[in-house]
């Protein structure tokens, strides 16, 4: 069934009797050509592009819980391509371009809203760094603008411009950045993949990976053995757990990241904003809640809930940037498990086992990467060659000293 405005009207006139489930709930077959482990945004996007763009068939997505129940269902929904380094920027710009055509492509309303993102700066040094970053973005075909203080004031007059310690001097703006309805991304990809014959198998946890003579032959799951010619793992925070089935130690730690939503407010922030003097970023959902977050908790964790010190730190960042936020009550907070890599950048690569591929290490930036991650992983699975925008995302970059460290922090996951 194709979704459209006419369909909504036709269904309204006929008592909404024609709507069908958006995807099937199939039993797993004995074997597939491709098994994607992980039914989150990246896994579903991979299956979708494998079927649609790379014309592959006999594909299954295995999900231990329900579709989109992991990080794609618990992030702060921001999309952007404001990266500095050569290994990253073309990839994220490719992703942003895919976001721009996504809803037409998979025929689902993902509420892609290019409402603009600004990164505030507070010192001359920060301004220079953002100028450099903006130039790097433009060189890779993205858009960037440097705003002065008055331009920022015209957009957000309520910010704490004259803070004695961190006065706001201006901002780097990417107008094409914005937000997307995160759950709809998972649902849209799931529906699109299902329509192209992909089996989406839920409540099916991978508990082992079977290999024979250095080649993958399938996966052991809670619903029995399923054979496969190629297996792609895209499980974010559980990466180390799944890859431990083949005794692989990954260059990453799993960390908890918290996010927060305030009570619903009248329209206040029409874009996305990041604070330059503390780790705090904020946007406003269409329902009116301020959606904001900050740093990871800083110690490795699989708990999907965080501790008070980071709650305080984020609240302090918010108060320092826009003191009026102190009048809003916090409605919800939650935590997700981030696969924090050693340099803060992801991995889309083969493994030492033939037919076993890995996609992970997205740190806390995986949501914006969803379309390109799926496309590039599908490219690798189908052609055995990395996509041109993802050639730097290799396992061996750590050994070779070719790290993609946007923040220049060194090989310590909790600093990125």
């Amino acid at each position: 069934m194709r979704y459209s405005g006419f369909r909504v009207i036709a269904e309204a006139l006929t008592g909404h009797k024609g709507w069908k489930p958006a995807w099937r709930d199939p039993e797993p077959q004995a074997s597939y050509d491709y098994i994607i482990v992980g039914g989150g945004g990246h896994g579903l996007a991979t299956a979708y592009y494998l079927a649609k763009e790379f014309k592959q068939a006999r594909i299954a997505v295995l999900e231990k819980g329900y579709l989109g129940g992991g990080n794609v269902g618990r992030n702060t929904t921001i999309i952007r391509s404001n990266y500095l380094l050569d290994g990253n920027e073309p990839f994220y710009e490719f992703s942003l371009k895919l976001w721009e055509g996504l809803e037409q492509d998979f025929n689902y309303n993902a509420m892609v809203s290019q409402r603009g993102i600004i990164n505030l700066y507070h010192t001359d040094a920060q301004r220079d760094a953002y100028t450099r970053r903006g130039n790097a973005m433009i060189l890779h075909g993205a858009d960037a603008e440097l705003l002065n203080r008055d331009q920022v004031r015209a957009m957000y007059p309520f910010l704490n411009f004259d803070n004695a310690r961190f006065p706001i001097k201006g901002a780097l703006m990417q107008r094409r950045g914005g937000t997307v309805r995160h759950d709809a991304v998972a649902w849209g990809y799931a529906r699109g993949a299902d329509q192209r014959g992909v089996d989406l198998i839920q409540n099916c946890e991978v508990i082992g990976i079977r290999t024979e003579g250095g080649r993958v032959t399938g996966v052991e799951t809670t619903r029995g053995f399923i054979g496969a010619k190629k297996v792609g793992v895209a499980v974010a925070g559980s990466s180390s757990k799944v890859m431990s089935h083949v005794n692989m130690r990954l260059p990453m730690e799993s960390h908890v990241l918290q996010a927060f939503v305030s009570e619903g407010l009248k329209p206040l922030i029409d874009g996305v904003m990041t604070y330059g003097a503390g780790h705090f970023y904020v946007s406003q959902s269409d329902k009116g809640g301020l959606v904001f977050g900050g740093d990871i908790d800083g110690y490795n964790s699989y708990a999907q809930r965080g501790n008070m010190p980071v709650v305080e730190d984020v609240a302090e960042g918010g108060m320092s940037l826009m003191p009026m936020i102190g009048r809003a009550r916090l409605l919800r907070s939650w935590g997700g498990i981030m696969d924090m890599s050693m340099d803060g950048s992801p991995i889309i690569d083969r493994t030492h086992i033939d037919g076993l591929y890995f996609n992970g290490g997205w740190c806390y930036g995986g949501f914006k990467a969803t379309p390109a991650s799926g496309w590039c992983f599908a490219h690798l699975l189908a052609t055995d060659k990395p996509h041109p925008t993802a050639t730097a995302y290799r396992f061996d970059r750590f050994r070779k000293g070719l790290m993609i460290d946007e923040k220049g922090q060194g090989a310590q996951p909790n600093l990125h």
Partner: protein
Amino acid sequence: MRLTCPLCGARDRREFTYYGAEDYLNRPAPDAPPQAWDDYLHNRDNPAGVTRDLWYHDMGCSSWLLVTRNTVTHEILAVEAVADRKGGAA
């Protein structure tokens, strides 16, 4: 989350800084092959369950601590000073 420092007693998590897995204590020999150094610097077990990792008591006694804890429940199982371990200081 509270950690019981062997010198200072039970203290809030804010007093401590997390560094990383216990692996940092097993430094390869200077002439070890590059693979061993790569493994030491970058690769981690990252278990869901009991783990042992290094914390620094920077707002307290400045000790390096080896903490045994559960990454799924955030339960702290044991805290010992690295300097007290058999084999000496880190």
